[in-house]
């Protein structure tokens, strides 16, 4: 599969938006879906549908096999040691809530500290914030440097003897900063602290190797990874999944149920209560196939070229200010324009068919720190090309014209 030609795998690009071609630069929000994935959903529902793991009839057995096949594909894609280290959730947000809730029940006490960073998405802050009330836990934030980057030193500074968990993003959805997870994990482990990584933004754009990163938890949203909505993945080392209590309770995650007590299933069922997102899991196998067919190395180099080009033209465009200039940067171009509010930019770009996002991107802490209430963000996917970035720039110029800038 040739990446330069990949747009044709995505049916949405044959539609017009306000009579313009769609220039989709909102993949950090959610990616478009290749036809193979949509077809898989269609075929599953029309030819093979059944619930998983609960009946012994043909369709159910087949669906169970398909469901577990995706688990194996994800294991391989993440280079996880064990298939049972892959838990399906409804999204990265649920995955992080699962970790915060179960980890705190088993391992946290009043006065313990969680270390986040100023880059974190609300989904990697609110679940930890809950523990302030329920457990009397304290939350610390490693600070960004002037490039919108987090150095290992700034992490180290905030570690105290009470730090019981480091929960950090792999790739910032605003500054694009790629954090040195492997080094952070080494540092943390040397102090006996587990590391939870918010991999939402990294997963579609970077090579993922759990055994190399050696992190304890890794949260992923499938809808940002060319997969269906309503599905996420929690990778967790087996020792954690074995020792954490279950999260939601319901059908499928129990061993024996009595009126006075309940015992729970083995992995992976223990953490998959109730009917899961069967069709979505099964279709996600096609997303993994799709990524594998292009090859992550090709994706990385394609997106790097685009990012460099995008930065180049936007830097040349006066009155556009890029946000963040980290050492290693991925797939995200956030910016402001003096005197034009990001919301107005986004609305006007939209008239030209250019879809970007404006707002705080669920990162209020970061925006506060940067002295902004909002920013504009163009983010990349495999299907983007230089044309898209040229159109972005053109449309920004239209916008400036309207506002007489």
């Amino acid at each position, binding site marked *: 599969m040739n990446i330069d030609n990949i747009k044709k795998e995505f049916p949405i690009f044959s539609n017009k938006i306000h009579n313009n071609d769609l220039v989709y630069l909102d993949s950090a929000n959610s990616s478009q879906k290749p036809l193979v994935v949509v077809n898989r959903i269609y075929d599953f529902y029309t030819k093979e549908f059944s619930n998983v793991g609960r009946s012994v009839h043909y369709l159910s057995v087949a669906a169970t096999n398909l469901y577990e096949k995706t688990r194996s594909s994800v294991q391989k894609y993440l280079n996880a040691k064990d298939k049972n280290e892959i838990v399906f959730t409804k999204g990265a947000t649920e995955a992080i809530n699962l970790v915060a809730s179960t980890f705190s029940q088993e391992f946290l006490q009043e006065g313990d500290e969680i270390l986040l960073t100023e880059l974190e998405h609300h989904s990697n802050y609110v679940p930890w914030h809950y523990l302030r009330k329920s457990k009397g836990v304290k939350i610390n934030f490693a600070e960004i440097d002037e490039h919108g980057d987090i150095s290992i030193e700034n992490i180290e500074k905030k570690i105290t003897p009470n730090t019981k968990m480091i929960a950090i993003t792999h790739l910032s959805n605003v500054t694009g900063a790629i954090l040195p997870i492997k080094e952070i994990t080494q540092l943390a482990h040397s102090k006996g602290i587990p590391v939870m990584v918010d991999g939402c933004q990294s997963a579609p754009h970077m090579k993922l190797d759990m055994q190399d990163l050696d992190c304890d938890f890794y949260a992923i949203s499938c809808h940002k990874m060319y997969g269906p909505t309503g599905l996420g993945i929690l990778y967790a080392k087996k020792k954690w999944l074995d020792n954490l209590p279950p999260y939601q309770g319901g059908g499928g995650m129990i061993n024996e149920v009595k009126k006075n007590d309940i015992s729970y299933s083995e992995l992976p069922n223990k953490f998959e209560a109730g009917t899961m997102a069967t069709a979505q899991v099964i279709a996600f196998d096609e997303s993994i196939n799709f990524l594998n067919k292009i090859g992550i190395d090709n994706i990385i180099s394609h997106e790097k070229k685009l990012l460099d080009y995008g930065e180049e033209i936007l830097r040349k465009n006066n009155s556009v200010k890029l946000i963040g200039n980290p050492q290693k940067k991925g797939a995200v171009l956030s910016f402001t324009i003096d005197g*034009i*509010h*990001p*919301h*107005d930019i986004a*609305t*006007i770009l939209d008239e030209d068919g250019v879809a970007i996002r404006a*707002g705080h991107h669920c990162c209020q802490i970061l925006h506060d720190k940067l002295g902004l*209430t909002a920013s504009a963000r163009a983010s990349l996917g495999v299907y983007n090309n230089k044309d898209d970035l040229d159109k972005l720039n053109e449309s920004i110029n239209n916008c400036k014209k*309207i506002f007489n800038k």
Partner: protein
Amino acid sequence: MNLKELYQEIILDHGKNPRNLGKFENFNKDAKGHNPLCGDKVHLFLKLDENKKINDISFEGQGCAISMASASIMTDLMKGKNERQVKELISKFLEMIKEKDDIESNLLNDDEKTKLMSLGGVKNFPMRVKCATLSWHALSSALDDFQKKVTTE
């Protein structure tokens, strides 16, 4: 009317040069509005008489052209209106911005109607509807709140 035309007329003017901007001294009521999705903020200052007639009104805020223009147009319009009139205008405005094509009210002259209806173009943009209504909701809660204080004091 599409949004771009919109940006070239009344909204751009009010957005860039908002009327009634800044805190004035002897206000006796204030109220804040905040749109968590985009971070738009508005802070209203009011001088109300005992019957909640608006003797003076101004605002501070950060936000897009639409929310700033809306606050600017609203404050211009509300000066001197009594409680009943304010409430009527708020509800007419919200109706217009959410579903109706025009706005009918004896309280408005044609020029004022035109200004308000310039904001009507956001009808099909739920995100922008919130921008346009932010200051109006804040005004509404300021009045209700003032009442509460009066009755409990």
